[in-house]
């Protein structure tokens, strides 16, 4: 009995202690009190002399730049250059792979240990802003109205939530069709397909090369993969005001798009990896098993590293009833509400968004978001950005909505059921619409 009570006291003491310890998580500025942060006048000459004496402020910057090329350039060229010009700021670069990024960021946010800055997928901004995680840049940057005028309006608009800007565009991209020149030559295809009808003719010829040769491949039925087809057929996920998907996602044009994908998987034109299980699309492309892929501007530098001798061409997304419409990708740079170093973070943000840095990032395949950069000679004479810029003029962005992750899961599941032939196209999309519609209203 005695022994037991000792153990009991010890245990309960330890439990109590552990709760105390855990309660001592770093105190983050709470979300409810979103006071306008008045940045100190960092350009003020009188205060800068004092700042130089003090130890440099270290800010953390999370990104998912690819480890081989982009992150190396950031860490070995850009950050040292910035730190040399701004001795009072040190930048800690943290590479978080894309597929873990959102989760790790959310965990850090809930623990109050968010980074100061992050480069995030444009599609995450509404959700993060909805959670109250992001700093309203219109308050952080005093001359935001004039400062933001230098950005391309499309990418800039991806930062809007409730009429306020919670980030700034950092880079933009879209997907264009890359085609395998060897396979096209072997199949006797003379020019890259420009319309859906021409695409089908090309696929027919590719199929004559063998049963294990595919005309086209993609990784799944998520929006990044299927939306270019939906839009090019004239369909969409929701209406323009994002209030309903009825009559849009199950409308005739979207039905036609899914029917097209389904037919092409059934007759073996498209690689069945789109239904799930994935596909090594670059390997297949490099080894003449796949003739066409939709790829972004990172493709030439990275694919060139894997298959230096492979010849390929690039062309626009084949046009359907809705024209040639691809999907807008890219990243925004956001600052976190929890950051207590917003001034230093603003400096680095502005450095990354300066015309000089934006043009430097072109060398690693990042497309700039500044109007002035797009009109510069570097871009005009760039070996492959031209086609992407042309595609961007018609490209659309995925639905900016705080519940986008859920909406996309419904789309992905519906697409997989439809393409697998488990439900008819119309039934599958009707079902998806009935699930998406209740998610759309924002209270």
């Amino acid at each position: 009995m005695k022994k037991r009570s000792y153990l009991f006291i010890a245990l309960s003491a330890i439990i109590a202690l552990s709760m105390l310890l855990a309660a001592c998580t770093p105190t983050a500025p709470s979300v409810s009190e979103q006071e306008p942060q008045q940045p100190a006048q960092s350009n003020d000459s009188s205060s800068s002399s004092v700042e130089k004496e003090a130890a440099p402020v270290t800010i953390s910057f999370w990104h998912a730049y690819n480890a081989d090329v982009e992150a190396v350039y950031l860490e070995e060229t850009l950050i040292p250059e910035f730190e040399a010009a701004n001795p009072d700021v040190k930048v800690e670069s943290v590479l978080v792979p894309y597929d873990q990024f959102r989760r790790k960021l959310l965990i850090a946010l809930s623990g109050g240990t968010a980074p100061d800055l992050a480069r995030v997928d444009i599609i995450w901004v509404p959700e993060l802003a909805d959670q109250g995680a992001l700093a309203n840049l219109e308050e952080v940057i005093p001359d935001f109205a004039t400062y933001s005028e230098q950005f391309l309006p499309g990418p800039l608009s991806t930062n809007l939530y409730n009429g306020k800007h919670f980030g700034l565009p950092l880079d933009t991209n879209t997907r264009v069709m890359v085609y395998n020149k060897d396979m096209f030559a072997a199949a006797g295809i003379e020019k890259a397909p420009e319309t859906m009808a021409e695409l089908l003719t090309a696929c027919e010829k590719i199929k004559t090369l063998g049963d294990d040769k595919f005309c086209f491949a993609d990784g799944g039925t998520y929006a990044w993969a299927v939306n270019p087809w939906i839009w090019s057929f004239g369909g969409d996920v929701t209406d323009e005001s994002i209030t309903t998907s009825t009559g849009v996602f199950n409308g005739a044009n979207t039905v036609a798009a899914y029917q097209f994908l389904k037919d092409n998987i059934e007759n073996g034109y498209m690689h069945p990896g789109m239904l799930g299980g994935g596909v090594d699309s670059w390997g297949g492309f490099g080894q003449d098993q796949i003739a066409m892929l939709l790829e972004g501007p990172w493709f030439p530098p990275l694919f060139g590293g894997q298959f230096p001798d492979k010849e390929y061409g690039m062309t626009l997304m084949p046009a359907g009833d809705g024209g040639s419409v691809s999907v807008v990708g890219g990243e925004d740079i956001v600052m976190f509400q929890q950051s207590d170093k917003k001034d230093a973070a603003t400096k680095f943000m502005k450095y990354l968004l300066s015309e000089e840095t934006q043009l430097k990032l072109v060398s690693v395949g990042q497309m700039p978001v500044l109007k002035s950069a797009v009109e510069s000679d570097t871009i005009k004479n760039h070996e492959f950005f031209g086609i992407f810029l042309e595609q961007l003029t018609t490209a659309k962005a995925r639905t900016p909505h705080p519940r986008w992750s859920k909406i996309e899961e419904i789309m992905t599941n519906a697409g997989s059921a439809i393409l697998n032939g488990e439900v008819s196209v119309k039934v599958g999309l009707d079902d998806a619409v009935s699930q998406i519609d209740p998610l759309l209203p924002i209270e």
Partner: protein
Amino acid sequence: MYLSLKTQKKLMPLLFLIPGLLFFAIFQIYPLLKGFQMSFLDWQIMPGKVSEFVGLDNYARAFNDVVFGRAFKNTLIYTLVTVPGQMIIAMIVAILINSLPKGKTLFRALYYIPVITSWVIVSLLIRYFFQSPNGIVNYFLVEVFHLVEKPLPWLRDPALAFVPILILGIWKGIGWSMVIYLAALAGVPKELEEASAMDGANGWQNFWHITMPLISPTIVFTMVMLLIGGFNVFISVYLITGGGPRQMTEVMLSYAYHQAFDFLDFGYGAALSYLMAALIITLSFLQIKLLRKPQEIY
């Protein structure tokens, strides 16, 4: 401060226990209690936001959730297939190795290698093997053994997608049970086997009436442990199918994780975990109560 020898003697063991207990309390007990609290709240991830108390809503929601029902069924299937699968194969392997005149250590090590291999690595390998149409499994099925006409759409077909997960679960677990069975078999007195052989028992009778009763506590132990392990299946599902296609291969943990970390619904995720914990505790309790018999060996 002077303490009497008696107090010192009492204090000493506690002092030695504190580091371990502290670790246990912070990383096991605290999250456990926190999760329990979360399961009754509409948990907000951002510090400073108020998490509303919703009572049993999260639990009630689970019972009307079709996908959770499917996840529950899949977890059950996984456990019912992999636990006996591991136990039977491990027993056969253990008996074979036990009867080897030499090379026991080598084979024991070989069969144990999968156990210490990282789940992540073998899951990714299995995913690679079962690729379709050009995976190595399809190659053997179609080109070498001519068992099927066309490559099977392994990870795309809901009916097939769970098979690689089951195979991996069994393969990776054999070594663990085998080592324990080997130890138990080594403890079976040779005299008993010799005596029964003398009385005319054949190999099977010998195994069934002499060996089995003697090692049955070990069998119950492995069964309880494997069952708990089976219900905890997560990494392989997460990496091989990701719960897909269409959440058809979702298991309880992967679904709880999905709800919490993909949809930020931590309250619901915590409730799902607690439902599972309740299930495991009940099952383990029943197993031990029903299966463990008092042993009278000598």
